[in-house]
């Protein structure tokens, strides 16, 4: 007569599991949730012009919206609006380029590469293990006035004299963003493409579809969610990026939202403005995330309906 085998969750076991989850949860409460609340408390805090230290108000009933609303005014129709538009256009151009370069590469790695697959995968993963700023440093070296890029472009007569890439050139910033973020786009897309069951394609071919029709009617629709997921993974951190463009350009002409936030928090004495911008940025990303979640759940439902 053995004991009853499954499931066997007693009250005391629940205590053990709760105790295991407790330290990590507490850590996140104290060092993730409370800090985010501090951002809100600072954004709605007491404005003290000229004072470097933040003046948070912890009690929501006593929040003051003056600083926050003035930031909103500057975002919608003011100078900060320009920065938001610029950030959006950089991010959109970058993600389109990531898609145009990344999709064929991920497709090849997942579905066509046979013998070379191991090597291709290894090289695709390699950038993950190279420090982001080292990868940017590499471009700073290449894009110097007497760097390899200028010398190559002059050698093929595309440039008459060396170009100044590293001070306020939007092309350099977008190049840096694509270079920095594309590995984060390709790998999830690779995973999505690889998961597609080859039998669907065989079925499509058996039913008379040519290779093109099979791709557009089977592979592409099945990989669309993967593209969206890869896009979201890439875009979320990019909206908060300030170092790529601070490093490769460092000019106000190419500033993104992140540069403004960093400027108000580290360079000037207006932590309130910086905190308010963080809230605006977070709201924007919540909307983006919400759109993603709605579209995935809709896609899941339509899959079930079919």
């Amino acid at each position, binding site marked *: 007569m053995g004991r009853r085998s499954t499931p066997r969750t007693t009250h005391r076991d629940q205590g053990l599991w709760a105790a295991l989850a407790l330290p990590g949860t507490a850590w996140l409460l104290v060092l993730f949730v409370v800090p985010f609340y501090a951002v809100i408390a600072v954004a709605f805090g007491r404005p003290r012009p000229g004072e470097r230290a933040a003046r948070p108000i912890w009690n929501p009933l006593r929040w003051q919206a003056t600083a926050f609303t003035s930031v909103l005014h500057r975002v919608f129709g003011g100078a900060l609006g320009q920065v938001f538009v610029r950030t959006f256009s950089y991010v959109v151009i970058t993600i389109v380029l990531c898609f145009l370069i990344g999709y064929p590469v991920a497709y090849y790695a997942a579905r066509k590469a046979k013998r070379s697959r191991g090597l291709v995968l290894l090289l695709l993963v390699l950038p993950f293990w190279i420090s982001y700023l080292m990868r940017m440093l*590499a471009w700073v070296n290449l894009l110097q006035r007497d760097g390899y890029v200028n010398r190559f472009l002059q050698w093929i007569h595309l440039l008459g004299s060396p170009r100044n890439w590293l001070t306020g050139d939007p092309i350099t910033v977008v190049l840096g963003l694509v270079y920095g973020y594309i590995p984060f786009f390709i790998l999830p897309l690779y995973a999505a493409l690889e998961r597609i069951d080859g039998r669907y394609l065989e079925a499509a071919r058996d039913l008379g579809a040519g290779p093109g029709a099979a791709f557009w009617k089977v592979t592409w629709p099945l990989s669309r969610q993967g593209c969206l997921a890869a896009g979201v993974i890439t875009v979320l951190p990019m909206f908060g990026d300030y170092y790529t463009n601070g490093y490769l350009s460092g000019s106000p002409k190419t500033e993104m939202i992140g540069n403004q936030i960093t400027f108000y928090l580290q360079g000037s004495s207006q932590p309130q403005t910086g905190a308010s911008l963080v809230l605006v940025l977070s709201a924007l990303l919540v909307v983006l995330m919400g759109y993603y979640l709605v579209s995935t759940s809709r896609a899941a439902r339509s899959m079930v309906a079919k």
Partner: protein
Amino acid sequence: MTRLRRLWRDPWGRPRWLVLITWLYLAWSIVPVVIAVQFSFNKGKSKSVWQGFSMRWYTTDPRQSVLHDPSLHSALTNSLKLAALTMLIATPLGVALAVGLARWRSRASSGAQGLMLFPLITPEIVMGVSLFLVFTSLYRTISLGFWAQLLGHVTFNISAVVIIVRGRLLAIGTQYEEAARDLGATRLQALVHVLVPNLMPAIFASVMVVFATSIDDFVISSYLSANAGDQTVPMKIYSTGRAASTPALNALASIMLVFTLVAVAAAAVVLRTLRHRGGGEGGSAALVTLST
């Protein structure tokens, strides 16, 4: 026109241009870094013109080499210390949280589950600003600097550990633990002697991921730094790379690169042998698991 139509009808027909794009992309993604490493061995001061091979910027230059410039090797030790301590704290916290969340059933547990996901989708700058503001206003006892940086690094790594370990937990199921309990073990004994050894590959993978993310981090370290004394390698690259820096900076970055790559390669080998023992996929799959 007909060529376009043919392309539409059979976009990947002959994978020749797919092969071309893929290898061009791979070359583009790797070659700049290789060139940066090459310049770390430059004889002269330039980072854009090759002047011959030397170890000057690693060891021999009496003032500016990584070995002799105190600001460079303090950045290196700061980075390594931060990554090592983060690894030691974030991994056990994350593993315990993953196991707890997988088994614990209550309303509080689903709250904790949701909370755990947020750091994964929060941009670093939001986390950096939050921690900066909280350390300068509410948690004043911990001043900005190394310890604040450490707390920050642990915070953004816990969730990654949970995700990695959770995948493995789902794959293992509960039957081994149930068997151990049928044989008379207590819950805790079953946990320590049965579950933890089974989780080893995932724990090991987490350790590597935490180490690599921590050593690569710039935003959190920079927001929580107090002065030049707590600069990490990425911060050093950021603050001096544009202006008048010497190839010693490339040497510093290359040393870091070697640290990470050796650690990752070792991890891939260990994961491979662990999986072979359990029967499973090979090394490249292990690498992909490590990275995502």
